[in-house]
């Protein structure tokens, strides 16, 4: 959802406003943040699956809006003047990703904000008793997770040079996020990364050598997901950690997997950036 907002911000400003790309990127992030704020206030009252479905409905509504409006080009989408220099975008993305990592790291590990987030995740009532306003912190995290996604959306729009409602507000990457999360283990930082490597490698190899059996891809992916969930409920990384810990003689304990909180949901709801190019 925020990805699409960023993408359309850049596309509309560049195409109709004649703005320079560099100027549109921060605005993409800004609008994503503003939207997250106004959306977050009401939706964060919803719990669990309702929150997921609420944001999902909203993303679909935005997609419909982009299909109908004239300013977005409707179903025809928008084409930007091509600037085909992958390394340019490479650095942009690296910058945003790196900056985000750094920011999150500082906020979550060093600033009091991280403590608040963890307090709410562990025990919302307890956190409230300590004077933490959970809604406020949730909205803050929601906005915080939306801004980088909006920035990436902006970059994506200019990189691919073509966006339409399907690609900007579609949900194909939701699936992949789930896959990564599960193969790699939820609630850990490294788990999803490992999942990403495996899925990416598998995809690349599959399309390179087995492209005649495209349908097989769905089946293999499905079987892989099903088997992982059945036999490695903690994901590959989580299982590894458990194994390591228990072999060190520590008490086996499942990797702490927090309930899906607001920021994680938002992350899974929107369209992510392209995964290979």
């Amino acid at each position, binding site marked *: 959802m925020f990805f699409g907002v960023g993408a359309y911000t850049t596309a509309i400003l560049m195409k109709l406003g004649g703005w320079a790309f560099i100027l549109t990127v921060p605005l993409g992030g800004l609008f994503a943040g503003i939207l997250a704020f106004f959306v977050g206030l009401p939706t964060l009252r919803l719990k669990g699956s309702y929150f997921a479905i609420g944001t999902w409905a909203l993303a679909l509504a935005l997609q419909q809006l982009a299909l109908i409006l004239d300013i977005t080009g409707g179903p025809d989408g928008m084409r930007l003047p091509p600037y085909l220099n992958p390394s340019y975008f490479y650095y942009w993305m690296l910058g945003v990703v790196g900056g985000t990592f750094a920011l999150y790291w500082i906020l979550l590990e060093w600033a009091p904000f991280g403590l608040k987030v963890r307090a709410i995740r562990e025990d919302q009532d307890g956190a409230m008793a300590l004077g933490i306003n959970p809604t406020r912190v949730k909205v803050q995290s929601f906005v915080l997770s939306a801004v980088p996604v909006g920035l990436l959306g902006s970059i994506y729009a200019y990189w691919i040079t*073509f966006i339409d409602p399907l690609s900007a507000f579609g949900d194909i990457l939701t699936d992949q996020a789930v896959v990564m999360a599960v193969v790699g283990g939820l609630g850990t930082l490294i788990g*999803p990364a490992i999942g990403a490597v495996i899925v990416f490698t598998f995809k690349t190899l599959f399309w390179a050598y087995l492209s005649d059996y495209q349908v097989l891809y769905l089946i293999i992916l499905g079987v892989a997901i099903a088997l992982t969930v059945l036999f490695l409920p903690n994901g590959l990384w989580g299982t590894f950690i458990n194994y390591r810990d228990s072999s060190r003689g520590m008490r086996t304990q499942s990797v702490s997997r927090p309930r899906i909180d607001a920021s994680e949901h938002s992350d899974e709801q929107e369209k992510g950036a*392209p995964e290979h190019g």
Partner: protein
Amino acid sequence: MKRMTWITLFLALSLVTAGAVGAEAPVFKIGVITSLSGGLATGGNVTKQGYEMWAKRVNDAGGIEINGKQYPVKLIYGDAQSEPSQAASAAERLAAQEKIDFALGPYSSGVTLAAAPVLEKYKIPMVTGSAESPLIWREKFKFTFGTIPPVNFTGSSALNVIATLDPPPKRAVVIGSNDAFSKATAETFRDTCEKLKIKVMKYDIVPSGQDLTPYMSAVRAMRPDVIAFGGHDEELIRLVKALRQIHYAPKALLMHYGVTEPAFIEALGKDAEQVYGASVWTPTLKTKGGLIWPDAQSYAADIKAAFGIVPDYTMAACSAAGLAFQAAVMQLGAAPPLDEAQKLALVDVLEKLDIHTFYGPIKFSHEGEFYHANTGLTPLAFRSRVARPLSSVRPTTRRHRRSTP
């Protein structure tokens, strides 16, 4: 956060994998970028079968003959997954890693619009056997060609036939599904109706996948003579069924795409009978071809033997796209792998190409709104199931064609 990890990894991995290309016996490496999965997989696989058929026949004959030597073709697929971003990624991979000589194009305009600039960048010519949306040709990509004329070139032909019915239809309702191709079709229908002095009582673009029965109930109350619908095959089937269920038959039901498709006729059985549509090719068409297939009938027989289905015009256009490449590269006389100068020269040859195939003439337009689309063809109007041309070119279409050299 996950997305960030994903991207960082992609960046790292793409650097690692970029180096791995091996040397093989000289073949024409042809990238096929099309949607093998996702929402457009049905159409995507039609294109795939069309390209495959061509490649198979070429390789059965030993390959494409260049200066007395034969070079086989190798198709390398890139799945666009019905997503523009995936199409761009696939194009990037095929161009940068697989070092393809040539590309055969996607199904659907969104995907084409995303893949084309990438191929421009790598200077790889592409002929697509699908993508009927006018949007593509308005962008004037130098390296992109198409064997099917855009829908604004072909779409009016069936309406022209309907206009000659007795008594002539006076009122029409035009509906389009909300995707690029269907919307363009509906726009063409609307404009042509106005030109033909058929009153458009209602014009709507509806979200795809809607149940149109309530809408049709309302339309029924207006009693139009013609219902014209721009949409993809499933939507057409649903619309026909909806009309059947509410027991309403307008004088003419007009659709652009799918009417000649075997799946459409099979799925609907008798219901499909009074549907009009336009097409550029059917297996019964009288054509004469030089390369591989002498006529439409032998092509249809080949497809039937290979896949057990009757080919539609998209499939034929895709095989014809292969033929266009084959003819051009033979004219050029360049053996694989093609270098950049040869690829540029190939574009020049394609621009001047004027050949006759089982599919009909292939001649790409040089300028105007049909830039690099095949305007050598004459659109035909069809009534479905009968699956034979009601009439060939109508006068207006001819004028239309002449106005765009």
